[in-house]
């Protein structure tokens, strides 16, 4: 078959491949160029910069803590939403997703209005020594706020796919509701839960807007990139950005490989 004939026979596929290629390049080109155009010497120097390493470490750590908190508080809600029908359920499902659409700087300000020093929750936590302004706790709640929808949605879909009757059978065999949950529903939804955790963690790492409003310090990597860009210019901001991209991509790839291990 000639090339032209092949094209005319597969017009839809060819068109879609070209369009798909376009958007793929759009995503990959800036990332690739930034990584490959950077000078190895400068990159090494950046790695040695304790402020940079501290910021990246803090980012990964804060995102991890927020994912753990999200896991503890989000999984029960995801399970409830998957298993029960109650008035207002649709509303709750909608509201949980609101952080995805709210501009993140606005989200940061909203959080400040609840967890700020002048407000009730902020004051309550202050009595036990936790403040959310310019603190690690502030970074974490900002990350939780913007990334929790990813975990809840994914876990909810996972629980929905588990046949309710599996739990029912478990109950007749002597399992309490807790045992049925931990031995049947949770392991069966685990893949979706893990995927949700990874998404939440990744989203936490990439958060900038809400964090910068609530806690400029301690400085997470996205804020550091911004600061270097503002004070010293592009050349100083780029190596940190490259490093941040590399670390996130590597960790993301490893986690996805774990999560999808054994998939056909």
């Amino acid at each position, binding site marked *: 078959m000639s090339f032209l004939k092949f094209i005319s026979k597969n017009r839809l596929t060819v068109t879609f491949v070209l369009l798909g290629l376009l958007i793929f390049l759009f995503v990959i080109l800036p990332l690739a160029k930034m990584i490959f155009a950077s000078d190895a010497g400068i990159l090494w120097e950046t790695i040695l910069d304790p402020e940079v390493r501290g910021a990246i470490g803090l980012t990964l750590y804060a995102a991890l803590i927020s994912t753990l908190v999200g896991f503890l508080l989000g999984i029960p809600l995801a399970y409830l939403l998957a298993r029960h029908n109650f008035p207002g359920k649709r509303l709750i499902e909608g509201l949980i997703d609101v952080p995805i659409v709210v501009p993140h700087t606005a989200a940061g300000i909203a959080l400040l209005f609840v967890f700020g020093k002048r407000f009730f929750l902020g004051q309550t936590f202050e009595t036990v020594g936790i403040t959310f302004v310019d603190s690690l706790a502030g970074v974490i709640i900002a990350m939780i706020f913007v990334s929790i929808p990813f975990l809840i949605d994914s876990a909810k879909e996972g629980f929905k796919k588990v*046949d309710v*009757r*599996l739990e*029912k*059978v*478990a*109950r*007749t*065999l*002597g*399992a*309490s509701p807790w*045992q049925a949950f931990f*031995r*049947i529903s949770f*392991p*069966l939804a685990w893949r979706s839960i893990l995927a949700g955790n990874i998404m939440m963690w990744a989203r936490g790492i990439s958060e900038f807007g809400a964090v910068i409003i609530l806690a400029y310090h301690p400085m997470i990597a996205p804020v550091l990139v911004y600061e270097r860009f503002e004070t010293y210019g592009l050349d100083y901001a780029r190596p940190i950005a490259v490093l941040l991209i590399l670390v996130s991509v590597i960790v993301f790839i490893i986690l996805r490989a774990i999560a999808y291990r054994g998939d056909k």
Partner: protein
Amino acid sequence: MIEVNDLSVDLGEFVLKNITLTVNEGEYFIILGPTGAGKTVLLESIAGLYPIKSGKIWLRGKEVTGVEPEKRKISIVYQDHVLFPHLSVKKNIVFGLKMNKTTADEQNNKINWVAELLGISNLLHRRPDTLSGGEKQKVALARAIVTQPELLLVDEPLSALDPETREKVQHELRQLHRTLGITILHVTHDFEEAIALGNRIAVIGEGRLMQVGTPEEIFRHPNSEFVARFAMTRNIFHGKAERKSSGDTIFRVDGAEFIIAKEADGTYHASIRPEEILISTEPIRSSARNCFPGTITHILDKGSTLYVTVNIPPELSCMVTRHSFEEIGLHEGKKVYVTFKASSVHLFD
């Protein structure tokens, strides 16, 4: 053994109400009803898995109405098996034993016992998704009985299986019931299945319990229009099969001798589908081996089709279209001939 008293369950679209029944110790009890009659929900209510609106349930003299399902000692086997997909066959079976805190020794003994009983010892290390329908059914049964429940609930256990496996599993269920002496409550929409397995049958429909009795009672003396319709649109007989000197195998019932296509000897049930019986005013010469004269005793009008009962005896229900009904001019009391093939007579235990 188990007593259900004035049970009502809300099914959203309709209500199952005033269900009262008693199942005796060691009985094989069938709940028979059309699809969508709420049979599965009734089982789940008895197991404590579905909230009931009102009524009471007693198990061995103790009221269990508000008791959690894990404390009732009632096992359930669903139509599509519902095995735990993330656990091996062995772990599926051992699940209930672990929940009931049995020792490792005891677990092994019981697994071996149940695996041997059901002939699934070679499947223990397989994953559920690698099993055939019949194998899954056996594993589900093993998982349900290994905890030695006081009552076993089975939900349409045969309808998801192919005809050959059906027969095997049906046999398996009867064996299980005999060897263990366990009380079984089995729901089905299949009349033949009900008659083949049940010591007693409860017919439910229109959200109510219509009749309870032995298969013979239900079939011979339906107490309501609903049960009558359910029974009358099916020809089921109890009789004897034997081989004649002519070489034919016949099924003898109420003095009539039906020629059948299968070799058999002994007491059986036989069924003939009403749509496979021809009605004519003169005897028909054809390849069909069974042709009998009789009298029309009853006509049930179902719109485009009618069920005509012809007494040979026994009484045979025949389905005819309205067109042929009017063309032949059938009416009660008319003498007619019924014709059906030997292969239309289906023999079952």
